[in-house]
């Protein structure tokens, strides 16, 4: 069974609040990004997004954007990305999700990219700028390979769109808490409550809520509200602040545990 579906089922059955972590492949370098990812996984993440950096990540804010630039400047290749995914999926129980942008997939060849992702043990794909109805065959190939594409619902979607997206999304519906790019802290206020409620009322799949999550205080409020929380820029920030000689894996494990 697909690891993502397996972890999801276990978490839902246990009524857990699950964590989806995030690393930038090759940031600050390939080796450190692997160690950091392992730390997030051993810290309790059920899912991990491994972002293959693109120079123009148009759904991401400055923290992730800068990490992407650094990785690219250090010579990141798509093959490095697959190497990282292979290492993580074979050494952890966390479901590995490849997150990237359209041109990376398109240039590699959509079918080849999906096959390679599968071969390296990835469970799912997230490509924010390949839209549902014009995705260059991404979803078709993913389904063919016992994987899927996780779709993203953003504020502004109406109930019907949320329903459509959730039906086609793989396992869960990635739900963005507020407008704008990744990174800024989200105030969990009446407006976000209303939005989350709209998604809950219309989604046919469990909700993974993301953008701006960085503290236990926030996740405490979300317990029982959504089954999965996503922390992206939070982990990338921790990685960017690592000092020389620090044990990368244990620092990230701590950061992961600190969210709960």
């Amino acid at each position, binding site marked *: 069974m697909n690891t993502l579906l397996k972890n999801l089922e276990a978490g839902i059955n246990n009524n857990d609040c699950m964590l989806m972590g995030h690393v930038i492949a090759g940031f600050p370098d390939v080796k450190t990004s692997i160690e950091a990812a392992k730390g997030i996984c051993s810290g309790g993440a059920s899912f991990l997004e491994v972002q293959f950096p*693109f*120079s*123009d990540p*148009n*759904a991401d*804010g400055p923290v992730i*954007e800068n990490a992407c*630039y650094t990785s*690219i400047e250090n010579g*990141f*290749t*798509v093959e490095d990305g697959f190497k990282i995914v292979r290492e993580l999926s074979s050494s952890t129980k966390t479901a590995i999700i490849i997150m990237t*942008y*359209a*041109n*990376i*997939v*398109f*240039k*590699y060849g959509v079918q080849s990219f999906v096959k390679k992702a599968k071969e390296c043990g990835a469970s799912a794909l997230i490509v*924010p*700028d*390949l*839209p549902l109805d*014009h995705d260059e065959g991404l979803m078709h190939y993913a389904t063919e390979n016992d994987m899927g594409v996780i*779709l*993203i*619902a*953003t*504020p*502004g*979607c109406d109930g019907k*769109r949320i329903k459509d*997206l959730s039906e086609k999304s793989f396992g869960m519906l990635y739900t*963005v808490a507020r*407008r*704008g*790019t990744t990174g800024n802290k989200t105030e969990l206020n009446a407006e976000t409550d209303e939005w989350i409620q709209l998604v809950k009322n219309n989604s046919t799949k469990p909700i993974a809520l993301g953008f701006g999550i960085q503290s236990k205080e926030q996740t405490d409020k979300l317990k029982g509200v959504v089954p999965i929380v996503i922390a992206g820029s939070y982990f990338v920030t921790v990685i960017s602040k690592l000092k020389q000689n620090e044990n990368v894996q244990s620092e990230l494990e701590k950061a992961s545990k600190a969210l709960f």
Partner: protein
Amino acid sequence: MKYNLPDENGFFGEYGGSFIPEELQKIMNEINVEYNKARKDPEFQKELAYLYQHYVGRPSPLFHAQNLSKKYGAEIYLKREDLNHTGAHKINHCLGEVLLAKRLGKKKVIAETGAGQHGVALATAAALLGLECDIYMGEVDIAKEQPNVIRMKILGTTVVPVKSGQRTLKEAVDECFDAYVKDPVTQLYAIGSVVGPHPFPQMVRDFQSVVGTEVKSQFKTQTGQALPQNLVACVGGGSNAMGLFYPFIDDTSVNMYGVEPAGRGTAVGDHASTITYGKPGIIHGFKCYLLQDENGAPSSVYSVASGLDYPGVGPEHSNLKDIGRVNYFNITDKEAIDAFFELSRIEGIIPAIESSHAVAYAIKLAKQKPGESIVVNLSGRGDKDIDFVIDNYGKQYGIHR
């Protein structure tokens, strides 16, 4: 068969489309719906036509450049977009975009700019029609195009310096996209060329096609011939070229030439000849020829003309290349600068460095096609470029400060 693109999803053949996050898709759909209403609304068209005539100064002249013609042996005509208010073709689509922004109830228009021409044109249209305006511009271009930066500020626009990457046009687009994603509700991203997600490539082309439509009737009136034999325009994103070409696409006797910047060499990073050296890719929400490396990362680009150094190109040009309807060639920095001085000195017209690329190619073409008619889109005037040209090339042409 009559040319009828894009299709309803914004595709020109395999190019174009709308490759953007969910959040922006909804907004693009709204823009598309409203644009299609506006297109068929006589009131909207009347207002635009009024502004073209009385504010921009349209129709712009079609000038038979007899000195140039005599010297190089063909009949060369210049479509004088340089004489428009604000000095380039960009005002044609900016007025359209800002009128549309008002229809959509937006408070602010935002955009990227390279040479500053689109920025100035948008700042101008925004001032006229009462909207706020933010322009994103790479720091390198800000230094190179000071007069336009100052113009925008005088017009009440905020110029946002872009400090990332190569600090030129591509990064300005990136940052403007970011700003747009943050607030797509009160702002409209008034894209500066026939690029971006659907419906922008179509919309900007439609607004610019006034250029080709005028050329058609002016050429006939002036020469008694039904159609010109050759059309030449420079291609950055490709808006001035689409404006000239589009009304002639079904006139198969008309040869069309798009001119890309060959910069200072053929190595990656030394040019921006997207169609000549690129491969299909996806950037800034659309599919097109793209200069990119084997990992799919857009390549760094360079041209002496700030308005041409973009690693992508309009999706319609990408398709016109594939179906063989338009020929694409490139012109080096040096050839463009030579043409800049040539046109200045034998016709008394100082062209924009971007447009100088088209002039340079027309001169080459004239030698290959003696006696034929060639219409060049003189997309802008060169006032903005004089300091840069004199500082970098003055000595070679005997000019000292």
